[in-house]
């Protein structure tokens, strides 16, 4: 076994140090913006990876949960006067329950049939958000009130990075522990072979439901936080394109890899910004990068590099 796999917690220290450095050194609101978006995406992708990478289920509509969280935080305070913390919790609960119900209904579907249902979910949520203009502001979206945590508002971009960075560290730490637990082992068994796992006593249905909900809730929470951070929500937060972006981040970084998820999120958040000056060629460049990366690093960046380093550290 190579050095990298000795302790996953090592990576956590590295992450923490990086975040502290970023907090201190990033020069202006624009760079902080990118970092905050990276952190938010990383959390989503880590949890989505549990579903796709570890449990082997495909979700083509995960952005629906993001949208539910975002719009809960927009609509409930604006139309009903709810405090923002409560709206965030509501969004998370709604997403979790929805995920459980859907999983119960569709757990017997495999492969692309599950993908279809999640795709349908994404589209239905998008359509509702676009059309119910009176509640949601329609295709042009609506403004979101500031996040109010027990009377305190977040004073600036740096504090947002602090919050999201802290949540990211928490997420990584939690996920590492989860994967070392019996729950995590059952998940790995599920991915390896469903039939074998069932034969070994793993209740497939229960685990799939649990993982689906487990990946939906943090996505919803991140949706809520994004809504407060940007101050504005639009229906394409729940859209198909956003779902595909999430899927791409998972695969690019490396399926079933926690740090891969972080890397995938970081890269695919930064790349469009770096390519933005290419004026027209950015789509082509992005596509080319995806193709080349997947050809040469087919398991995703982190897992492929891990294997490569493993071979060479003998």
């Amino acid at each position, binding site marked *: 076994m190579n050095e990298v796999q000795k302790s996953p917690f090592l990576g956590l220290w590295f992450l923490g140090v990086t975040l502290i450095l970023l907090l201190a050194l990033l020069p202006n609101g624009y760079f902080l913006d990118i970092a905050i978006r990276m952190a938010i995406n990383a959390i989503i992708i880590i949890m989505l990876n549990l579903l796709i990478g570890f449990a082997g289920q495909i979700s083509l509509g995960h952005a629906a949960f993001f949208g539910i969280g975002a719009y809960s935080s927009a609509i409930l305070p604006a139309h009903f006067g709810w405090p923002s913390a409560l709206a965030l919790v509501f969004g998370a609960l709604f997403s979790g329950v929805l995920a459980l119900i859907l999983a119960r209904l569709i757990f017997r579907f495999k492969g692309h049939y599950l993908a*279809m249902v999640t795709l*349908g979910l994404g*589209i239905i949520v998008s359509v509702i958000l676009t059309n119910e203009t009176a509640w949601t502001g329609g295709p042009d979206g609506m403004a979101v009130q500031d996040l109010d945590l027990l009377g305190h508002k977040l004073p600036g971009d740096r504090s947002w990075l602090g919050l999201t960075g802290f949540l990211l560290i928490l997420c990584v730490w939690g996920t590492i522990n989860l994967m070392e637990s019996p729950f995590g082992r059952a998940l790995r068994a599920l991915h390896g072979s469903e039939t074998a796992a069932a034969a070994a006593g793993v209740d497939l249905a229960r685990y799939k439901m649990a993982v689906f909900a487990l990946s939906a809730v943090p996505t919803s929470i991140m949706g809520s936080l994004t809504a407060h951070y940007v101050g504005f929500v639009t229906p394409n937060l729940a859209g198909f394109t956003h779902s595909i972006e999430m899927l*791409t981040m998972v695969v*690019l970084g490396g399926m079933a890899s926690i740090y891969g998820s972080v890397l995938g999120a970081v890269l695919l958040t930064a790349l469009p910004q770096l390519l933005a000056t290419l004026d027209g*060629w950015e*789509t082509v460049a992005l*596509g080319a990068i995806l193709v080349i990366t997947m*050809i040469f690093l087919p*398991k995703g960046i982190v897992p492929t590099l891990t294997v490569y380093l493993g071979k060479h550290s003998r």
Partner: protein
Amino acid sequence: MLAPFLQYLISGITVGMVYAFSALGFSLIYNASGVVNFAQGEFIMLGGMLAVFFSKAGLPFPAAAVLAIVIPTLLGMMIERLTIARAKNAEILSLIIITIGISLVLRGLTQIFMGKAVHALAPISDSRPIHLAGAVMHSQSPWVLGFTVTVMAMLWYFFRHSLSGKKILATSCNRSAAQLMGINTQWVMTFSYAMAAALGSLAGVLITPITMTSYDVGIMLGLKGFIGAVVGGMGSGMGAIAGGLIVGIAESLGAGYISSAYKDAMAFLLIFVILFLRPRGLFGAKATDRV
């Protein structure tokens, strides 16, 4: 009472045939490799855009149409050789991401070299609409229908009675066994991509007179085609056509009778019902899973 229903039906079938071609492309490639080709919609887009491009350059329609089909076909083969073939041992999801990347590249290049404008193409025959029992049909629709039926017949013959067709079927059944039988599975892959690209671009050329085209029509067409392929049973040619038509008709009826705003949602609810009752799609094979 009948007239509006007939109108919705005709419109649904017209747009459904486009989805059907798209679905057919998905099924072909899925059969050969297990990959869901997200770039399928872009082949349809290229068919339409190239037909417009060559027509504007002065070529007569038949020449423009042929070029608009041949070029994407060659492109499809080249892409497969350069990318999918290289990544042959990758997981399915990785291959899918590659196809996403390819679709971005195709769309981006089209945007740069052929612009962002929307383009129309003259229909093959007279542009006056055809009247049918109180409903109206675009003059291009019979052509699309005719080609769809012809293509279906040709594919049926090809898969049933030609050696190449049987090689493809064998590969999709069991790749290793096919290789053991001496079938060049690499060639099968390339050929399938070529066919999917050809079908897609043919569809593009045929329907552009009805729907117009632009660099970004591929996304929606690909998505609806994917849905149609799954509903019909991924991997089944009959299923793809049936699935595509169902999606088109469901949308049209939904828009007409229930709510135009929610027509996409309507189509999906119908699809959920179908999948619930027949999880492998309408014509999907009853496969057994390897333990």
